[in-house]
Structures are given as C-alpha cells and as structure tokens.
C-alpha cells in the first residue's frame, strides 16, 4: 500500500497525501470527483427498496393495524339493499312505488355497479394480505442479500490487499534471489538483432542437451534428484503459503528487514 519514501530531514504531508491519492486512483481506475460522489449519494432508491427504511416486523404491524382499525371493511350490496328496512310496511311501499321511481331514473345500473364493487373489495381484501406477505419476504430477502454483498465486498477487499501484499513480497524475493554458478539464468528479453541469433541458437542447443542429461539422471527411480527437486519445489510452495498473511507488516519487521529486502516496495529512510 504505502509506496513512498521520506527523507530523514523532512516529511511533506501534502506530498504524501498526493502519493496516497495517486495510489488509490491507480487501484480503482477513474475516480469520481467529490461533486459526483455527492450527487450519487443524493440519489436514493425508492423507500420500499431500501431495507433499512422498512421495518422488519412489517407484516405483524400491518395485521395489528388492520385489527385495530375502525374503518368498515366492506359492504354487502344486493338488489334488495336499496329498499331494505326494518319495518316490513315501509319495505312493501318502497317496492310498490318502485315503478314510479323508475320514471325518474333507473336504479338498476347503480345497484349492479355497487354490487360489483362490493365483490371487488372482497377479493382485494383477500389479496392484500398476500401482497404484504410478499413484500415482507422481499424485504427480508433484500436485507439478506445486502448483508451478503457487504460481506463479499469485505472479502474482496481482504483478497485484494492480500494480493497486493503477495505481489510486493514476490518482488522483494525476486530482488534477493542469488543464482548458483552454472544454474540456468533467468530468461532475458532479446536485446540484439540477427547477429545474436546464432549465439542464441547455440545457447538453446546447450540448454536442450543439459535438459536431456538431467532427464537421463532422473529416470533411474524414486529418490533421485528429480524427486528431490520436485519435493523442494513443493516445500517452497508450502513455505510461501504459510507466510501468506493478510495483515500489514509491523513497523519493527519493516525496519529490521529493510536492508535485507531491497525490492520491498515499502518506504525507507535515506
């Protein structure tokens, strides 16, 4: 992470902050400006999609409110409702005078509409609790997903810092590796033109011959050099894995190892 050096006689905080920000930009690609971040923060999702804005006991609260509510649930509306009365005589006269009423207006479409509305209200009441249950389940699921996303985000951050650390560790190790005399030198990028082609061919032929000789020595059976080399490789892998760590190296470690690891990307006081 911290790839800057400070001189022993000074430390310029502004300069350090610039370097830190440059590193952040490098990691994250194009950065948002402060205004853009503010703008993004101001855009809120719909309230019902924000799990923090919805009560987890939504369904219970809804049922409770429904039970406590004094508002009429629904009404029944039949073809007799308009003429209904507790007094039979009154009911009789209303029916009797119905034809006269029809001279003024036709009550039948009204009766029919109110009847349909009553049926619709019933079906809506039945579906309503299902909708709320559905919303409730969606909210729970969204919350669960939100938590999972947060956890995954943290894991990604953790992995990324581990990777960062490993890369730097690898660079540091590369810097201190000593090649044995006579061992195969690491491949170098080609530098010359056609003149070097012949010598490269010769070198390649020598390498191939060496490889053949080595293969010949490995063949005799278990316990040979080939196996030893393979087990050494395995052991070095295990060693590297056991050293894999996700926390920042302590200052004391850095200070004491700063000379031993010239390729280390950490700071050094000069």
């Amino acid at each position, binding site marked *: 992470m911290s790839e800057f050096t400070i001189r022993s006689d000074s430390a310029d905080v502004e300069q350090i902050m610039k370097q830190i920000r440059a590193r*952040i930009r490098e990691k994250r690609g194009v950065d948002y400006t402060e205004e853009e971040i503010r703008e993004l923060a101001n855009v809120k999702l719909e309230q019902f999609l924000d799990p923090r804005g919805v009560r987890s006991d939504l369904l219970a609260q809804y049922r409770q409110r429904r039970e406590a509510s004094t508002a009429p649930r629904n009404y029944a509306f039949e073809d007799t409702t308009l003429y209904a009365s507790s007094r039979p005589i009154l009911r009789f006269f209303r029916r009797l005078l119905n034809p006269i009423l029809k001279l003024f207006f036709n009550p039948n479409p009204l009766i029919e509409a109110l009847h349909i509305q009553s049926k619709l209200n019933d079906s809506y009441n039945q579906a309503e609790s299902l909708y709320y249950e559905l919303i409730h389940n969606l909210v729970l699921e969204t919350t669960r997903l939100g938590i999972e996303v947060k956890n995954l985000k943290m894991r990604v*951050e953790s992995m990324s810092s581990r990777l960062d650390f490993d890369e730097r560790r690898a660079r540091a190790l590369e810097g201190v590796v000593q090649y044995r005399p006579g061992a195969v030198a690491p491949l170098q990028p080609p530098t010359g033109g056609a003149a070097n082609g012949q010598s490269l061919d010769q070198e390649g032929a020598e390498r191939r011959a060496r490889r053949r000789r080595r293969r010949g020595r490995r063949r005799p059976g278990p316990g040979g050099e080939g196996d030893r080399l393979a087990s050494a490789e395995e052991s070095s892998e295990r060693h590297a894995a056991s050293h894999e*760590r996700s926390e920042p190296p302590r200052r004391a470690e850095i200070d004491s190892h700063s000379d031993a690891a010239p390729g280390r990307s950490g700071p050094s006081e000069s």
Partner: protein
Amino acid sequence: MKLAVVVQRYGADVNGGAELHARYVTERLSRHAGVEVLTTCARDYVTWRNELPPGVETVNGVPVRRFPVRREREPLDFGRRSRQVFERTHSIADELAWLESEGPASPALIDHLARHGDAYDYVILFSYRYYHAWHAARRLAGKAVLVPTAERDPAVGLAIFGPVFRGVRAIMYNSHEERAMIHAAADNAAVPGIVVGVGSNVPERTDPVRFRRRYRIHRPFAIYIGRVDENKGCTELFDYFQRYAATFPRGLDLVVVGKAVMPIPKHPRIHHLGFLEDEDKFNALAAADLLIMPSYFESLSMVALEAWALGRPVLANGRCDVLKGQCIRSNAGLYYGTYQEFAETLYSLESNGPLHARLGRNGREYFRRNYAWPVIERKYLEMLGRLTRENAASRVEPLGGWLERRRRTLPAAAEVLARIPSGPVLDGQRGEPTPAYVRRGRHA
C-alpha cells in the same frame, strides 16, 4: 494589571473544550496579573441548571465569582429558534431570542460587569456564541478581548455577531482557519488579532506500560479520545475501522476513551474504556501508535495537540478545515476524506516506521514551537501590552430601532456560512500564512 475572565462554566471538574481552555489560560495568566473569573452556577452545558452555589470561591488559586442562570435551557424552544435563524429568513429580534434561548442567560453577571467594569483593565471573553460573551462585549467593548472558539457552524453567520467581532479590542484566535472564517464573516481584519490556541498540561513522563497492564491491552492500537458522539464523526470512524479490521485481521486495534452518547459497535478490536483521568489519558496516548480525530468541526483540537506533544502522529478527518490545516502546517499528521484514504493513511502510519517516526518528531516540534506554555503566555501578554500602548477607543455598532430589529430580511445563517470560503489556510514559505481557500458546497 487586573483581568476578568468571563466564561460560561468554570471548575476543576468541568472538561468542555472552551471551558478547559479558559481554565488553563486563566491559571497561566494569574502568574503575571491579577485574574478573577466571572462565570455562572451551571455545570451542565445542555440545561445550564444552577448546580453550584453563587458567590466567590477559589479554584486552583484563582478567585471565581459565580452568578445564577435566570432560567434553564428548553431544548424544544432552542431547537425551534435555531431552525428559524439557521434555515429561514429572519430578523435581528429572532436572533436575540435565539441567543437568550441558548443561554446561559445570567443578567446578574452582566450587571456585575457593568457596575464593576472599571475595576478591570481587560475582560477576556470566551466563546462568542453565548449570552455572556455577546452582552459583555457590548457593555465593555473597550476592554473586551474575545477568544471566540468558533467552529464552522451556522452561528457564525448570524448578523448579531458581526458588530461584536468588529467592536472588541482584540481577538485571540485558536487557528488560522478560525481567523480566516471570522474575517470573511464579519469583515473585521482591522481588529487586532493573533492566532494563539492553548497549551496543555502534558506530563514530562508517561508510563505506557502501566496503561497496558492496567487495561489489559497488549496489541498495538490507534486511539480516539473525546466524547463518543455522532457529531464528532464517531459513526464514520467505527464504520471505517470495522472495514479496515476486516481487511487487515492482525492490524491495529482501536481504543476509544471518553463518555459514550451513542452505541459503540461490539467488535473484538474496538475497546471502549470510558472516561479516563488525565494521568491514564496521557499514558494511553503514549502507549498508542497514533491518534485518530474523526471530528468534522473543531475550533482547536486540544487532544491532537497533546498527541503531538507526546510525539504521536495524528490521523484527522480531512473535512475539518482546522485539523487538516494543522496536519499540513505541522507535517505531523495525515488526513482522510473517504474510506480508501482512511485505509491507506492508517496502513501507512501503521506499517511505515520512518514515516511514523518523522511525523511524531514533527508533531513534538510543532507543539514546542507554537503551543508550549511560554509561547502562549507571551502572545497573551504581548497583545495586552499592545492594547495598553495603543489605548484606542472601541465601540460595538448599535442594533437599530424597534422596527428595524423586527424586519425579517436577514438571510438564513446556513446560507451565509455556505458563502464563506472554506479549506485549510496554508503556510507560505515565510511570514504570515497565505489563505488557500478551496470553495466547497454548503457546509452545514
């Protein structure tokens, strides 16, 4: 020379920022002049309830004269009036009603000053935004030396404070940012002023081992000292730290010192120790790797100065102009604005030994150069000496007539504040600091 120090609360057990500042300055000035403290009987800064007896008592060798507060603060009324003056177009009368509602309204204290003002050469007024400072500055403008302790909050945009900032004899600022903000708000550059701040009673020796043993903290840690409050940026701090802890499972712990007024997340690497006595506090600071200051608004962070005095670097919230400015001027702290910056800067301070050591040394040097007691005392005495020599008359502008005071034409204080440039004031190579403002959006 006879001085009166006027402050809202005073006592050995009163630990508010401005109040502690006032006590430290009083005790130091009492070595050079006769000092009397005029304060209220209140101990609680929320209610201003009269808890201490009126009359004269001695606190650490300094006479303290207490006056009763006329009435306790009513939070609902104060909240309503604050919204009125901070967010809406309002009148001078509204602002005066806000001032009265904020308190601590102690007319007895003001009457005493008016009657016995001649007995003092200068009156040092702490915290511009309170009743006592505003009324005392108007009554004794020619003797008033104001220590504003102003943060970047909308109160600074209220119209009633402009004449006070322009009318007092001198102003002792806490930071360059505070001075720039008040100059911009009140256009008072002509008033003699100096950036002083305050020292701290940092012990010569600390015992970090004792602290670790006593509180069983064995791992390296960063520390936060102060009220654990959302307004102090603690919610953001806990959020950022938990994310950092998930990224670096064996990184620094966080030790939190101070009274909690918000829930602290239960986390194996966050240790809340509650309020600590000074000795333990300094031992804790000495044991810490660094101090984190997550606050958005500070007039002067005494705890940051204490950390620097003990050679500990500070990681500050970059949205606080004062803290950011101090980090840059001292080269003794880093700052953050986002989680990424928080993680990178904390990691740098944690893992980069030479950087940590250099910032620590810079901090010690910065404190020694600017905030050691001899420096603070000298600045106060030089300013008082200058005022005596100049002997200029000073007067606070009148408020206007009955009708004018009730005319609702003043803009919302938050709007006024938003127009005031913000950002750290950066030091030039030599001489006076040069303002390097960064215009930002509304900063309520």
